[in-house]
């Protein structure tokens, strides 16, 4: 369930910041809703590929760093706390979306057709934001590769929920509110994961 929580918490923020870039790109071209959905599908496929790649990386990182490690609980707990603090600091940072940066270099890259939505999705999918790193930490504690991939798949689902209505345009009516809720949620989820990190450390130390 953590994967969904992380996905949903960063999904709102991601949506509210990235949509103004993604939306004009996909929708302002005057395509029909069906075409918009197919573009979105390509974009999401790219993102999923990025997420699953991270799932594999998280598994091997976990194998390398955490397996049979007596400090496993401290390491995971500490990582939770550090990335959670970064997550909370996101509240104060003026965010820009990877998609925005990519849009700026799109002309230079001269990538067109089906490939660009796919590439855009992949590159936004491997965006190293604190939420993503928290998910990475959580996944690296898992025992098998399939579990890791499933974790990142659900994390992807959590973030994707918000993107589905994009072609229907309706969600942007109150973008300011969505963005504020997203930022508040970053702080709250950060606090939640700090709590989890502390509990993990206390449990490792045999205190609770």
């Amino acid at each position, binding site marked *: *369930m*953590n994967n*969904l*929580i992380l996905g*949903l*918490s960063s999904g709102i923020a991601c949506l509210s910041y990235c949509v103004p870039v993604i939306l004009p790109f996909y929708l302002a071209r005057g395509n029909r809703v069906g075409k918009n959905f197919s573009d979105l599908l390509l974009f999401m496929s790219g993102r999923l590929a990025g997420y699953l790649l991270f799932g594999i990386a998280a598994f091997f990182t976990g194998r390398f760093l955490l397996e049979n490690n007596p400090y496993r609980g401290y390491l995971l707990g500490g990582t939770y706390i550090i990335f959670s603090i970064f997550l909370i600091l996101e509240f104060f940072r003026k965010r820009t979306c990877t998609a925005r940066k990519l849009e700026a270099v799109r002309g230079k890259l001269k990538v067109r057709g089906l490939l660009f939505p796919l590439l855009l999705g992949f590159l936004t999918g491997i965006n190293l934001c604190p939420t993503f790193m928290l998910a990475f930490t959580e996944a690296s504690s898992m025992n098998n590769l399939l579990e890791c991939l499933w974790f990142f798949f659900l994390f992807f689902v959590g973030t994707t929920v918000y993107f589905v209505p994009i072609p229907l345009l309706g969600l942007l009516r109150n973008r300011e*509110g969505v963005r*504020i*809720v997203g930022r*508040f*949620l970053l*702080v*709250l*989820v950060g606090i*939640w994961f700090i709590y989890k990190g502390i509990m993990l450390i206390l449990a490792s130390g045999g205190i*609770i």
Partner: protein
Amino acid sequence: MNKTLKKIIVTALLTAPFAFGSYFVTGLFSWRSDGLLQPISVLAVWLFINTMLFITLFTGKTDKVRAILFITMAIAFPIGFILQLFELRGHFMTAVMSDVISGNVPFCHIVIPQTIIPAVFTKQIVFPGTMDLGFQHSASFMIIFWLGVSLFIGKGWCSWTCFYGGWEDGCSRLSRKARIKLNPKLVWGAVAVLLLVILTTIETASPTYCLWLCPFKACSEFFEVASPLLAVQTVIFIVLFIGLVIILPFLSKKRVQCMVLCPFGAFQSAVDKINPFDIRIDKTKCLKCKKCIKECPVMAISEASLEKGKMGFSCMKCGKCVDICPGKAAHFHIKGTPVGGAFARVARTIFLYLAFTIFAGIGAGIISSALYRILLLITTGSMLTQ
């Protein structure tokens, strides 16, 4: 006939149907008791509520009378509730965490979103609320009651029905002017809390709001502080109560906890769409004085919403803006009807009937229970029945 006398008669006639209905709703008709204290308590509360409705209809002012009822209910709630728990348990503390998870504590409305939404996904009720304090404390009663209230007055629950809200409503009225100004963006805080509470409830299969965030533990029941973790939770409850329910409302004249923390309030804002009432601004009469923006206790009015003639999503239908508007531009309104004029008077009257009936249904029991304990103390020297 004297104009005032005529107005009194018309108001009395308007109050009469409610007086008849509330005779049943308050339970006055069905009391079974050997002593006189219980019927005296219920009768006094019945008279109190009817008098308040009469004053509301007679004066045309809503918010101050509502606040008297609302604050009385909030103060009365811990008196009756804590003593009832004390008689049942021998102490007023929840013994262990598993009591909460197994539902061996009374159910309150704030738990509704973290009960029904996770239940949809997980098919598990994380807070059954089955303690033997009567049907009105069970989850099934509260959810049915909530559905009914939501259909009739929607988000009006937060100003007319919530038995906690009166604490901060009262504190927000203690100072004459606001000493601090809050950022209007804070109204979105409760939505974020709601999302977090739902997601963490699904993850942990436990009512996380009750375990970690509920400031009203401070005026209902505590956990027994049996571990460092429970001590931390208890400190959180007390800090949130003192900070968000007492100090910040006093300093800002806003209902801070309701806006920033309460997941039920945020949930109710979404549910509000299904009820027929809202508050609207007649743009042709608006003087643009912005008094309503300054005075709204939940920051539901902004310049943008004034332009649209509609309230923001945090509006609790307390009626304060309607009362204070110098241009008489703010009105109670039934969706789909014209704003203002005779429609506004009809909308307000129907809304008041519904709100007072709902208040009688839940508040009368709470206030009469507290009054009964006070009368018991006066006559026997003890507030306990056993």
